[in-house]
């Protein structure tokens, strides 16, 4: 029982990271209408941005959930950096392009290479870390529930939740969400209705890549930082988005949760006696994903038509 709880806890942390990545990807997917393969590297970019900023602000006193205040400032800087880069990329690369969504997809592969090249050139390929001490499992939880959860885990989950709620409010409480969906649905008609689609798209890039950056920072905080972390996780993030139903931000959250959990729950299969080794964990996640798609061909939150 404690074992399952532990797997669930691991899954929750991992899911939080995946969710941040997948919401951003889903936003871009639905509004700019292409699968953005540079999203993973945007995550990495944000993580490195925060690394540099942490070097500056890391010393700021006080801690929240075991993390120095400076870390949160660095997080914000990383998010801002990713947003700025994404907006610049949009203006310089995507916007002037006269191509379809697959053409954009291919372009985004090119963009991903450029981002990674820059990071690799500036920071090398070796792995790096935020200089924050780990504090080990929270004793209370370990004693009462026999589940090891660190403050850092809690910080990741809480921060992800805060960002997700903020996004939810942004989409629901302002007309922005509706404008985004309208722009995604039919950009010409959106303009006819008076929506300034240019701005909507910029906002989309800002929000999407800032969230991606947050995901990247937490990912780096969780394990470590190298120029490939974002790209390595991109496949999983895509799986989450598609599993959730393309274009549905809430679907992406659900998909992220599911994929993150599946990923961490695979050992359970071994525990209950199935002859499936951990090496097959990604395979199991993918097979389940395909199975879900067969039942719901448009994703969990996608409509059934």
């Amino acid at each position: 029982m404690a074992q399952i709880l532990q797997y669930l806890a691991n899954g929750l942390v991992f899911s939080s990271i995946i969710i941040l990545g997948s919401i951003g990807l889903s936003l871009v997917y639905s509004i700019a209408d292409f699968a953005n393969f540079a999203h993973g590297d945007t995550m990495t970019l944000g993580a490195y941005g925060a690394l540099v900023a942490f070097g500056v602000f890391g010393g700021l006193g006080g801690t929240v959930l075991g993390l120095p205040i400076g870390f949160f400032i660095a997080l914000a800087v990383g998010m801002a950096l990713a947003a700025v880069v994404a907006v610049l990329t949009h203006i310089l690369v995507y916007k002037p392009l006269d191509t379809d969504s697959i053409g954009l997809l291919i372009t985004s592969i090119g963009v991903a290479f450029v981002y990674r090249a820059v990071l690799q050139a500036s920071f090398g390929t070796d792995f790096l870390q935020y200089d924050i001490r780990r504090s080990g499992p929270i004793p209370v939880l370990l004693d009462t529930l026999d589940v090891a959860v660190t403050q850092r885990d809690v910080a990741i989950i809480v921060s992800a939740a805060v960002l997700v709620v903020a996004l939810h409010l942004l989409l629901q409480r302002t007309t922005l969400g509706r404008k985004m969906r309208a722009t995604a649905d039919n950009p010409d008609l959106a303009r006819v209705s008076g929506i300034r689609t240019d701005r909507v798209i910029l906002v989309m890039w800002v929000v999407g890549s800032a969230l991606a950056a947050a995901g990247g920072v937490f990912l780096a905080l969780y394990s470590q930082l190298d120029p490939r972390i974002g790209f390595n996780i991109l496949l999983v993030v895509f799986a989450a988005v598609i599993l959730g139903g393309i274009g549905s931000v809430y679907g992406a959250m659900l998909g992220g949760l599911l994929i993150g959990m599946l990923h961490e729950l695979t050992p359970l299969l071994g525990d209950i006696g199935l002859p499936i080794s951990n090496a097959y964990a990604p395979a199991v996640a993918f097979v389940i994903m395909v199975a879900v798609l067969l039942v719901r061909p448009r994703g969990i939150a996608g409509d059934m038509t």
Partner: protein
Amino acid sequence: MTDPILTVDGVDSGYGEVQVLDDLSLTLGEGEIACLVGPNGAGKSTVLKTVFGMLEPWTGSVRLGDREIGGMAPEDIVRIGVGYVPQTENVFGSLTIDENLRMGGVARDGGLDEVVAELYDRFPILDDKRTANAKTLSGGQRQVLAFARALVMEPDVLLIDEPSAGLAPNTAKEVFDDVETVNELGTSILMVEQNAREGLGISDRGFVLDQGTVKFEGEADSLLDDPEVSRLYLGGESRR
């Protein structure tokens, strides 16, 4: 004719390199309803798209009152009091009816709730389906929604592309009535209609377009009475 509120003057326009409109001129008087008729592919929709900034005029000018609007962006044109109902793809399929209507009013300063409520009153067909996604609407219901969406802005000038296409006779009558009502409330209307006799019937003036230019223009009634126009463009009798 009253003072022109919309003037299209010597406009060439088209898609990519393909020219569709050829030195086309027409005017819409303040408070008027004018109807554009003509064969398929004559360029009627292209006129509306050019006026509304979806296409940039290659030459010539488009003026709203005295103001040049040729080449202005649609989202800006909306804000100076022009509304447009496209012929196809004219609703947001993945948004609900209510959201569609509200999207029609993003450029409004206020009073959105009131207008929307009023529109539900006027179009009960929509009221029943407020929370349905627009893509589940029948062809005719969709057409009504598209029309209603453009009314949310309460524009001074309304461009409508085939409002009656796909409508049942009774609904078409209602829509034509509504066009007249809106017009009486002060909106000048430029309308494209294949249901030419009905369209001209409620219009003050008419234009017959063929191959990108205006072939005939004049009082709506006189066009209806013109035997040549009838034979070439309007068909035998009223279509409903």
